[in-house]
């Protein structure tokens, strides 16, 4: 018998009316008995399953054990991933408004770093450049809004510097990698770098104002000056990055942007000169207040009444002391004027180059303007630094003198108060003991000078000579 015949005979076994099949009567009877039995044993009230339980039972029936295990493991993984992502997203979104020193600030930085790392890993230089720009923008905003605590400021400035440097580097790489993409990205880069540059200008201006504020201590002024220097430096870097992006643009777009850029630079420089002139003016008066309280009285060796009745000689002596610095500041202002003239000349050249269609050369010239601006800024800030240093030095000297003769100073204050009373009396009734120099002074002028002079002299510790 062949295997095929054997198979056919086996299949036929079921179809034939053989004893292998059950008796029909048995089937019917057995069913009847069985149903009667199970009906009597089954609970009449069906168990109340919740919808969840029903779904679970159905699920278990239609899904095999293996599939169920896989689904369970998969869904667990999904849950973990979703929870992680959701937690991360919530954390990141909550941290987006955080400032340096806040608890969530590190989350904000970590999120930024992760994004940059991912972009870097995928080799998407365009995205990386944009992310570095975003970071720089955020750091600038933070600098603008945060408390100017030196440590925090230092960190933010360092990060900003790094981001700006990275913008330049990644854009350069993008340019080498894909010039078309770079061209496409350049517009956005130009716009963003310009925005950052403008924000940095505001930060620098604010810091520069802080550096000359009379109410600020010299330490505070020094800090503000350092911040100004650093921000100016970063701004220079970001401007350079902008020029690099402009170089990739179409000639028409580039032309407009360069023209605006050069004009803006010259305007900035002019504004800066005006600001510096104001600073110089203030510098000649501000230290005078400080200096006059020390140098004025010791040099003149005047008596109490002399000091109390006139401030004019004090100021004169102070200005003499300051004459060296004034000269230096004036030189700086003159230099800046010269620089602006030079910048204007270059601007003219840039204009000509743009008209001639030499965009690259125009950009190079613009870079020259940028260099001049940078040098001018550096020099001006250097002078400002010197003024603050001088101020600090004088304050230290004051403090030393104050420590050496505290008792005398106390006495001096009392005597000054007494002398003030005397002065008032003298105005009413001229005294015989009135000093000769003092007698030359107009009593009406003296009346006006009384209050400030007393204020100045009251800080003076040296009263032994009186």
């Amino acid at each position: 018998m062949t295997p095929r015949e054997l198979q056919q005979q086996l299949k036929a076994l079921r179809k034939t009316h053989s004893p292998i099949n059950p008796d029909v009567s048995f089937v019917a009877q057995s069913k009847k008995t069985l149903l009667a039995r199970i009906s009597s044993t089954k609970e009449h009230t069906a168990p109340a399953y919740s919808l969840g339980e029903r779904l679970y039972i159905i699920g278990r029936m239609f899904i095999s054990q293996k599939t169920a295990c896989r689904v369970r493991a998969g869904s667990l993984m999904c849950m973990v991933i979703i929870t992680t992502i959701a937690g991360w997203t919530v954390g990141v979104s909550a941290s987006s408004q955080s400032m340096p020193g806040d608890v969530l600030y590190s989350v904000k930085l970590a999120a930024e770093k992760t994004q940059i790392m991912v972009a870097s890993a995928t080799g998407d230089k365009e995205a990386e450049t944009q992310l570095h720009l975003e970071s720089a923008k955020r750091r600038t905003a933070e600098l603008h809004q945060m408390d100017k605590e030196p440590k925090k400021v230092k960190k933010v400035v360092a990060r900003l510097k790094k981001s700006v440097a990275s913008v330049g580097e990644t854009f350069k790489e993008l340019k080498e990698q894909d010039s078309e993409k770079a061209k496409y990205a350049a517009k956005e880069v130009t716009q963003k770098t310009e925005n950052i540059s403008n924000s940095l200008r505001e930060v620098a201006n604010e810091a520069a104002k802080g550096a000359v504020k009379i109410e600020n201590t010299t330490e505070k002024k020094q800090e503000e000056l350092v911040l100004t220097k650093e921000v100016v430096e970063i701004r220079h870097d970001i401007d350079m990055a902008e020029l690099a992006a402009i170089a990739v643009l179409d000639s028409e777009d580039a032309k407009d942007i360069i023209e605006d850029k050069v004009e803006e630079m010259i305007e900035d420089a002019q504004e800066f000169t005006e600001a510096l002139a104001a600073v110089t003016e203030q510098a000649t008066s501000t230290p005078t207040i400080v200096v006059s309280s020390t140098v004025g009285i010791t040099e003149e060796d005047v008596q109490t009444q002399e000091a109390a009745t006139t401030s004019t000689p004090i100021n004169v002596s102070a200005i003499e002391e300051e004459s060296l610095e004034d000269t230096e500041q004036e030189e700086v202002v003159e230099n800046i004027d010269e620089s602006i003239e030079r910048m204007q000349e270059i601007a003219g050249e840039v204009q000509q180059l743009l008209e001639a269609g030499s965009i690259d050369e125009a950009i190079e010239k613009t870079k020259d303007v940028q260099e001049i601006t940078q040098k001018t800024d550096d020099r001006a800030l250097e002078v400002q630094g010197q003024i603050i240093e001088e101020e600090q030095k004088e304050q230290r000297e004051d403090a030393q003198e104050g420590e050496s003769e505290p008792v005398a100073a106390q006495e001096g204050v009392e005597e000054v108060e007494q002398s003030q009373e005397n002065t008032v009396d003298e105005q009413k009734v001229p005294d015989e003991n009135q000093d000769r120099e003092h007698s030359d002074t107009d009593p009406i002028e003296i009346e006006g000078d009384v209050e400030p002079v007393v204020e100045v002299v009251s800080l003076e510790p040296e009263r032994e000579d009186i």
Partner: protein
Amino acid sequence: MTNKTHSMVSEKKLLYRVQAHKDAEAFGRLYDTYIEKIYRFVYVKLSNHTDAEDITHDVFLKVWQYLTQNPQKRIASVSGLFYTTARNTIVDVYRKRAKQQVVPIEEGHGVPEECRMQKIDTKMEVETILVHVKKLKEEYQDIILLRYIEGYSLKEAAQILDKKYTHTRVLLHRAMKKLQEIINV
């Protein structure tokens, strides 16, 4: 939806009704589907109508109890559940017989009485094969019954026997070879 898939889905529905609602009517439908199959399976092993009927009845009762007492138990295959219960019940019967030393009357004759009466026609030839099948060892009997008599696919047979597909295929091959040897002797 193919017929097989359709029957599988309807079987699962019935199973759900039995497990979740202890639905006797649903179980009755499952009974209709499996009564002949289980009876044949039992009969091939016992060769006694009375015992086969009793055991088949017991199998269905046990399945009902199992399903209603374990409403949340995952049942991968309804047919697998019936055949496994039948196999276990037969094993229990063998154990009892071993203790009681009872030899089935029909087994003594070797061939069912009905078969011996009609040896000359085709029907008799077919039934003779059954006699030869009974000479095979149990797992060979099972695979031949499931694959050729009941018409299950190898995959379904593997699932019912709780064996791997490849193993089932090899088993079937060996069983057929052995059966041929017995017939050709």
